[in-house]
């Protein structure tokens, strides 16, 4: 069996809802059946084979090639298997992801890993706003799984995040961990302004002090040796990420906040 490949024929004029093209939904389907599936693009439903050249037959290993940032909802509700996207991808990548792996060679749009429950998403590029966040009007962002971003994330990374891990090898934008409820965000690079704004619980792990300093709504709890960090770094070792190679440390400066709320969140900065 070979990977089931969807090669985009031409750059789409309208956004395409790709939520029907997941390993769990395509399992045991014939190529002719897959070709006849209708996807919404703009206000029209069009056949898959009018948008993509389809080759291969292994629905557990789906590849999108010649991808575009207009492909939305890739991997929505996915429970198993793997999706690899060559190029950029649109909004809501991995929405409600329950299992399996998604890997992107380019950049992603807004709401990547939105309300993700489990599994792993790796972005070998930059991610848009609201990585791991909640849909507008909803209060729980991702509740499990791991998101790895080798580049930078835009603003409001981990907004309303509830559980799971977001590992950012580059920089994070403004309002990182804003309204975060729990979980872990680790950043190897810099973070923008208003870090942890409205943060309730959870952990932001930084390898360097942000250039603009720690926000005023966080209090310094002093330097500490925290044993759980050793376990966390051990869990990184199996990941295909810079975090796997990062030297483990347990000595951190601990800040707690947002003191405008319940103040149970923490920013840990390597010392």
């Amino acid at each position: 069996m070979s990977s089931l490949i969807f090669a985009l024929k031409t750059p789409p004029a309208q956004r395409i809802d790709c939520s029907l093209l997941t390993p769990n939904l395509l399992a045991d389907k014939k190529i002719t059946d897959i070709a006849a599936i209708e996807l919404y693009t703009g206000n029209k439903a069009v056949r898959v084979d009018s948008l993509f050249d389809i080759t291969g037959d292994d629905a557990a290993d789906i590849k999108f090639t010649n991808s575009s940032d207009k492909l939305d909802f890739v991997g929505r509700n996915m429970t198993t298997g793997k999706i690899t996207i060559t190029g950029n991808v649109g909004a809501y990548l991995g929405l409600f992801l329950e299992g399996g792996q998604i890997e992107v060679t380019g950049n992603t749009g807004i709401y990547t890993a939105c309300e993700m429950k489990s599994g792993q998403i790796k972005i070998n590029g930059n991610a848009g706003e609201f990585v791991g966040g909640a849909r507008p009007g909803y209060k729980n962002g991702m509740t499990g799984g791991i998101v790895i971003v080798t580049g930078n994330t835009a603003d409001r990374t981990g907004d309303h995040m509830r559980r799971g891990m977001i590992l950012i090898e580059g920089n994070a934008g403004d309002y990182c961990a804003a309204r975060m409820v729990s979980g872990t965000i680790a950043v190897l690079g810099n973070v923008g302004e208003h870090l942890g704004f409205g943060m309730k619980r959870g952990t932001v792990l930084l390898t360097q002090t942000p250039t603009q300093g720690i926000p005023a709504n966080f209090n310094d709890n002093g330097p500490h040796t925290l044993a759980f960090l050793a376990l966390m770094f051990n869990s990184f070792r199996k990941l295909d990420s810079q975090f796997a190679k990062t030297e483990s440390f347990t000595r951190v400066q601990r800040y707690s906040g947002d003191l405008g709320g319940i103040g149970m969140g923490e920013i840990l900065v390597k010392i």
Partner: protein
Amino acid sequence: MIINGVTIDATFAEAFPMKGTRLIITAMNAKWAMISAQAFTGFATSVIACGCEAGIEKLLDESETPDGRPGVSILIFAMGGKGLAKQVETRSGQCVLTSPTSALFSGLDNPDKEIALGQNLRYFGDGFQISKMIDGKRYWRIPVMDGEFLTQEKTGVHDSVGGGNFLVLAESQAQALAACEAAIEEMRKLPNIIMPFPGGVVRSGSKVGSKFKALNASTNDAFCPTLKGQTKSELSPEVESVMEIVIDGLTKEDIDKAMRVGIQAICDLGAENGIRRISAGNYGGKLGPFHFHLQEIMA
């Protein structure tokens, strides 16, 4: 059967089902991990009055523990899951949470059957406790005066075997003790077992039942040397002292192996060191369903 002049009785040891778990205690150094482990496993020799049987399985170096610090692996057994959960929780709370620099982890995964480890201890944090999910397991970080107490939320329960045993019959008390010490030294090298009594040795082996209604166990008079002329004794005139080694293990096979290693160590000392016989606590099938036939084990 005779090995090196030591008679192996044609009898069997009776053991019973227990529920067990393995815990790993770590600390800043091996000394404090051991102090905590000794406190945890204190007063845990017999379920008859202690509520559980517990002991130190082995020392762990930094590469063998979840947090990369020196540690101690302990096993704890009780007659049921509820009893085990109660003992684990109270002992963890009083002996590990309180011990400087300690952390506490499960050493036994069994997703099908788990009991609380730090699940309720977290409330000691008075709302300041922090949960962390790492690799699918939940941990609790509880702020304490020396820093932070880290504990895994749950530990797995394993269907185990308690009460494996053998008796060492010697010409003198000193020779019986020396033989038992030699056996314990070898048995402690094995995984998945503990010898819960002081130093691994019991001098007050018991039989099932008593003439006193309040007691369900009493002295094993058939093996008490001072009663040779007073009761239906199992002892020959030259036997002056009997000691017992009791073994709890995660599986019957673990106990089989431990008994073989222990008895062999004693037989290596042989009759020339005053060891006359190896026997076992056989209660006519009244104590438990697991039977360890000495001669089969040593065959």
